[in-house]
């Protein structure tokens, strides 16, 4: 469980985050989404007991991050953005060192379990300096999961992983997230979409939106987009499609496809398909494009900037 109320952090005269209030319940995966410098890392550092906020309070796993910092740190697993590893240690030594610092009673077993979880048991005796970036990331994750923390905080956890590892990683997080609280930051929006139960969009130190990925999407999608591709040039097809009742904003794209919108509930797709065939075109591709989180994100962060001006 994470509960933050009015978190504010100043670095000298620069305000990194302002009045952040949010909650993450047990069994929930919450995504922190925002451009670089939005205040994601700062917030995470406050929640992990690395540094205190300037104003505001936060409870993590039921303990106050300032007055009960050690209790919080006991219950939190944290993977910072720059994976903190000792290159001169083997993977096993490193995890054992962390297990010792955390006073884990059966350290060896816990280390083995964590290695198993990130599928690094074969490299346990290799030196960390010899590991690839993806493997280092996994060792970092093993460190965060080692003591089976109630709350897992991951800062940009999938950077540097190859696509197969990303899939593996997401599975791991999803499994862990079932019974624990996971807060992860990312600027890969599809990741937030796939992994998170709830997304907090943060820009310039403030939360600009908070909802499930699906709700965020539907909240902002005014119309449904469809892309249509035919064999050859589509120039002459454009007026035909544009004339159909309910079709809005039909336009040719630079890549030769034709894109149009229609109001939700007034599906014009069958009519468009028929018209295309009747006009003598060979229909190659016909698919809807949802407004991606990417676009939502840009929309939100830009709106926010505009308001500030």
């Amino acid at each position, binding site marked *: 469980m994470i509960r933050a109320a009015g978190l504010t952090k100043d670095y000298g005269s620069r305000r990194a985050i302002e009045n952040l209030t949010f909650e993450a319940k047990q069994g929930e995966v919450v995504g922190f989404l925002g451009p670089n410098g939005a205040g994601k890392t700062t917030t995470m550092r406050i929640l*992990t*007991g*690395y540094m*205190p906020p300037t104003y505001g309070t936060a409870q993590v796993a039921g303990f106050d991050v300032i007055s009960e910092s050690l209790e919080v740190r006991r219950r939190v697993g944290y993977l910072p953005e720059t*994976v*903190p590893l*000792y290159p*001169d240690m083997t993977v096993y030594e490193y995890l054992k060192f962390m297990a010792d610092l955390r006073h884990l009673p059966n350290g060896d077993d816990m280390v083995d379990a964590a290695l198993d979880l990130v599928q690094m048991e074969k490299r346990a005796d290799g030196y960390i300096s010899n590991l690839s970036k993806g493997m280092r990331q996994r060792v970092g994750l093993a460190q965060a999961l080692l003591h089976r923390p109630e709350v897992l905080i991951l800062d940009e956890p999938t950077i540097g992983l190859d696509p197969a590892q990303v899939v593996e990683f997401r599975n791991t997080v999803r499994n862990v997230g079932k019974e624990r609280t996971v807060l992860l930051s990312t600027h890969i929006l599809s990741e937030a979409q796939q992994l998170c139960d709830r997304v907090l969009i943060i820009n310039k130190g403030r939360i600009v939106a908070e909802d499930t990925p699906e709700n965020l999407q539907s909240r902002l999608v005014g119309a449904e987009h469809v892309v249509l591709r035919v064999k050859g040039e589509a120039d002459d097809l454009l007026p035909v499609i544009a004339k159909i009742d309910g079709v809005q904003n039909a336009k040719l794209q630079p890549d030769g496809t034709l894109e149009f919108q229609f109001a939700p509930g007034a599906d014009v797709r069958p009519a468009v398909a028929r018209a295309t065939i009747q006009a003598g075109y060979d229909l190659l591709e016909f698919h809807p494009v949802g407004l991606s989180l990417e676009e939502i994100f840009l929309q939100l962060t830009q709106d926010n900037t505009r308001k500030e001006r």
Partner: protein
Amino acid sequence: MRNIWTIARREYKLYFTSPIAYIAALLTLLTVGIYFVVIIYYTVNNSYYSNTAPGIDIVIGPLATVFLFAVPALTMRLLADEHRMGTLELLLTTPIKDGELVVGKWLGAFLFMLSIIAVTLVYPIVLNKLTTPGIDQGVMLSGYVAIILLTAVFLAIGTAMSSFFNNQFAAFFATLAVLIVFWWLIRLPTYIIQNDSINNILNYLDLNGRFTSMLAGTMSFSDIIYPISLTALGLFLSAAAVEIRRWR
């Protein structure tokens, strides 16, 4: 206590994989070894000195001088390097106190230095064989107490500097500067200042004077208390610097 030991153990092991530590150990032992051989050779071959047997100071004296340079090299990375690698963030988010981290770091370095000092124990054994009726055990004991206390102080100053600076080289030179002040410079004003009470304070703070008298076999209560207090102060300042880091 357990956390201090965990940190210290890692730190101690790390020295055995670090080239700087090997170079520092080599330099120390080489200097002491050459110095020892030359003095013994000179004493044996010079009839004027043959009645005065060399004491333990010919081992511990040069040891202190080399430590002046070896300690900054060994302590510069203690916390500065953790900062550089990002592992300080890891350590500061594990359930250990800032003080435990700092003391553990210091202890690891202290144990490494003790290992180097332990190697030099071969010299008193040799001296004992070479001289009749053997070396003064009391002087030897006070000499080794002196060098161990001095090492503790030097390392605590180095640990503090490493926690003040993010840059290892800044930590190295700052440590060296502070050590030079306590080792050489602090008593110099006593030659020109006429005020006795100021001079008493400066003489009290002078590490070299205390060290020299301990090498000669005289040891006062404050000779023990002062270096221990200075070590504690250094470690306290390190812990404070780590704590301040959090609030910045």
